[in-house]
């Protein structure tokens, strides 16, 4: 039994670990372990409901906009109001811009370094001054720090890394992707300018409130927002998409690795104020079988989670009592289940549900990629399917933003008004860039009586359910080939394809005889 611990898995948001059991070079068991707990839900109880709207964005600094919107929506439910048209559209515009930031950061700054070889810079012979600057930087780092006390961190943060014969070999592709990495830093920052134009700031927009947003859609605001769309859109269509395709062409195996086939989407971008019409559809899919979504079928189980509170509860009644030393428990994540099933959420889930729902824009994009790779629909249930779904989504969203601007009532009120009732309850469902996000609130005596957030990463990185069945990431890791337990980059690629929002460690167990412990990344 070879125990390999990947801890921490970097280039994701937060603290997570995964334990895998490898036999004959393949994963035969896996555990996903969340390594951090803050107790937000307990801290919220007894506060002014409006505080939750601001504080809940701090659950995640990468997708605060979706938390802010989910929170606003659950408050609206509890207050018995709806956003006005401007409020709904401005929220979509903010969320859309934040998606572009999040998807770009995920591909280039989090996932790409699993595929791209930064040392290819040393072989660069071209004349681009920016690339040559980077090349000299890498050269000097390696030369100057050699033999010094800080040699270990030469080339940081790009080195050290897993070493092996598993990076892209083609120099031009590597250089192009590295240039993309640098350019994407600027593009995602510009996407955040668009978020801030409406939300006041980014991350942690201050202007999200029940009923809509606080920023009036003035001509100046619209001008600032519009200014960046074309450049980001061109980058997504011409560069991001091409790099995803280049990775897919080089690593075709990953169309067969990392499969999971249960999907759920709450529906992305509200196109009406009734929670019924979406740009990407709401629904549930088991393989290619589509079903309707019913929020009452959501339960959270905690048998394998470090909580002493009750299991299999609906989020309205959810409890969060931590017990760090609970026997048999291995994670801080709960195990959310839909009709008792573990579900994958995120770009792939949204794309699959929309595809099966007959969304023509999604179908066109997906079919074009499948044709390019001469593959059938099953190819999308994979690591590469997740990356492709993310790129397709970014492309479709960037194309939609201008249309939403045209629907705004310029200089009109950006929100509806409310009174906080003595008591009430509300549910706020939204699709974060990482997947289905729900906030549930109970208000009593005009204060928060209970607050529960079921976040995307809990859906896919959660542990076994009470029935002992694995969560989506755990299941997707099954059968993943691991060529070198000291450098299990394959497992890291599977985990990162989900875009987790917590930090991870992966343990690898081989056979039943322990031959040592290795740490891997």
């Amino acid at each position, binding site marked *: 039994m070879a125990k390999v*611990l990947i*801890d*921490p*898995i*970097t*280039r994701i948001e*937060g603290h997570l670990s995964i334990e895998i059991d490898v036999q004959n070079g393949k994963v035969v068991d896996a555990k996903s372990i969340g*390594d*951090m707990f*803050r*107790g*937000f839900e307990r*801290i919220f*109880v*007894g506060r002014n409901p409006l505080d939750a709207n*601001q*504080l809940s964005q*701090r659950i*995640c*600094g*990468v997708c*605060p906009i979706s938390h802010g919107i989910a929170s606003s929506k659950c408050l609206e439910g509890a207050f018995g109001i709806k956003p006005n048209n401007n409020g709904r559209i401005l929220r979509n515009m903010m969320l859309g811009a934040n998606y572009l930031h999040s998807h770009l950061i995920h591909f280039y*700054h*989090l996932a790409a370094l699993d595929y791209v070889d930064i040392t290819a810079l040393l072989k660069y012979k071209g004349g681009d001054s920016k690339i040559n*600057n*980077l090349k*000299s*930087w890498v050269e000097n780092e390696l030369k*100057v720090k050699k033999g010094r*006390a800080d040699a270990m961190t030469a080339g*940081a*943060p790009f*080195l*050290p890394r*897993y070493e092996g014969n598993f990076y892209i070999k083609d120099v031009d592709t590597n250089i192009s992707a590295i240039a993309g990495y*640098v350019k994407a*830093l600027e593009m995602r*920052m510009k996407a*955040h*300018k668009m978020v*801030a134009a409406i*939300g*006041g*700031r*980014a991350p942690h927009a*201050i*202007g999200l409130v029940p009923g809509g947003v*606080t*920023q009036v859609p003035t001509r100046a*605001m619209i001008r*600032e927002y519009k200014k960046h769309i074309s450049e980001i859109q061109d980058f997504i269509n011409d560069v991001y998409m091409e790099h995803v395709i280049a990775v897919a062409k080089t690593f075709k195996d990953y169309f067969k690795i990392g499969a999971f086939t249960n999907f759920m989407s709450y529906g992305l971008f509200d196109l009406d104020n009734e929670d019924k019409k979406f740009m990407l559809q709401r629904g549930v899919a088991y393989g290619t079988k589509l079903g309707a979504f019913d929020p009452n079928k959501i339960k959270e189980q905690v048998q394998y989670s470090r909580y002493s509170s009750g299991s299999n509860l609906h989020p309205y009644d959810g409890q969060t009592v931590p017990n*760090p*030393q609970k026997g048999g428990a291995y994670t801080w994540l709960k195990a959310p289940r839909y009709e008792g099933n573990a579900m994958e959420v995120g770009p792939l889930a949204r794309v699959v549900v929309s595809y099966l729902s007959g969304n023509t824009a999604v179908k066109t994009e997906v079919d074009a990629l499948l044709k390019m790779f001469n593959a059938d629909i099953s190819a999308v249930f994979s690591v590469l399917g997740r990356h492709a779904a993310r790129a397709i989504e970014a492309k479709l969203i960037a194309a939609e933003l201008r249309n939403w601007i045209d629907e705004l009532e310029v200089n009109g009120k*950006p*929100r509806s008004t409310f009174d906080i009732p003595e008591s009430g309850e509300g549910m706020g469902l939204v699709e974060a860039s990482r997947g289905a996000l729900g906030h549930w609130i109970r208000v009593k005596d*005009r204060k928060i009586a209970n607050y529960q957030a079921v976040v995307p990463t809990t859906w896919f990185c959660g542990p076994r359910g009470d029935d002992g069945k694995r969560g989506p990431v755990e299941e997707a890791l099954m059968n993943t080939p691991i060529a070198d337990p000291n450098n299990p980059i394959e497992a890291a690629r599977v985990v990162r394809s989900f875009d987790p929002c917590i930090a991870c*460690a992966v343990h690898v167990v081989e056979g039943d005889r322990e031959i040592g412990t*290795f*740490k*891997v990344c």
Partner: protein
Amino acid sequence: MSLNRRDFLKMMGGTAAAITFPSVMIQGCKRALEKAAERTNVIWIQAQSCSGCSVSLLNQVDPDIASVITEYISLNYHQTLMAGTGSKASGVLEDAVKKNRKDFVLIVEGSIPTKDDKYCTIGEMDGRIIGAREWIEKLAANAKALVSVGTCSAYGGIPAAEPRDGSGNPTGAISFANLMKGKTVLNIPGCPPHPNWIVGTLLHVLLKGMPELDDYGRPKMFYGKTVHEQCERLSDYKAGKFAKYWGDAGCLYQVGCLGMDSCCDIPARKWLGGVNSCTECGAGCIGCTEDVFPDFGKRGVFKHLNARNENLVKPEHRVPAFNLRNGGIFNG
């Protein structure tokens, strides 16, 4: 792109008057690059954080973030950005602890749980899972400077908030300075902090030495004035014109703005290179740079349950500046 004097002064809000620019900033020759390889090592630990401070750092412009990490600092450990995973990552921390290296600045993002190390763990050393608290204590013993980025690290922030049922903070979360009792910790609070505050403070430390700090460990150049006195809506306040609801024209005091009691330069500096600010967008300040955020005693962020204006003490009747710590003010 290298940082010129004008950019540096701009980032400092023009308060750092005369700066002689060091030769290390001159780019393009081999000597400069060798010098660049000696840029200050930074170990950036995320404990109970949301990564919002790191995302905010990525929004840095002039100099952009790519220049910051290739020309000014060496970002040796940063969980969200570094290529290395697992042992390749935790090995950097182990190296800094075991080799007794004294050549790095330790930055902490997020609060630190003290009730049980299991509330936040980061990698292994010698076959044992190590808690964030233990790493930070061990690294801090070697670090040449200690910096808190963000309100959670500076003062505890939301993870250190007190549940209203009196059950005590679930994880015993504390600030970096609290863990480091007796040592100087430079605080760059904000939820999130503006990237200029982070990069500007670091560059000030590297180029000019310690900036002048206020009573809460914050550089005065960024946190020296209240939001209110720099507010875009100050003339409305003076004219007695108050917004009745979020997004309306007028001073936002009566819809819960805490700008009179909170210190930072956002209305003047603005977010994302001048795009918008907390007050300009019609929401108002939530006091996120203050040590009492988000509890404000028993008050919370929003005192009243809706934005009604009756029963409010008029602004001119209250004691301005830092009254948040004394049991709360009276606005909506």
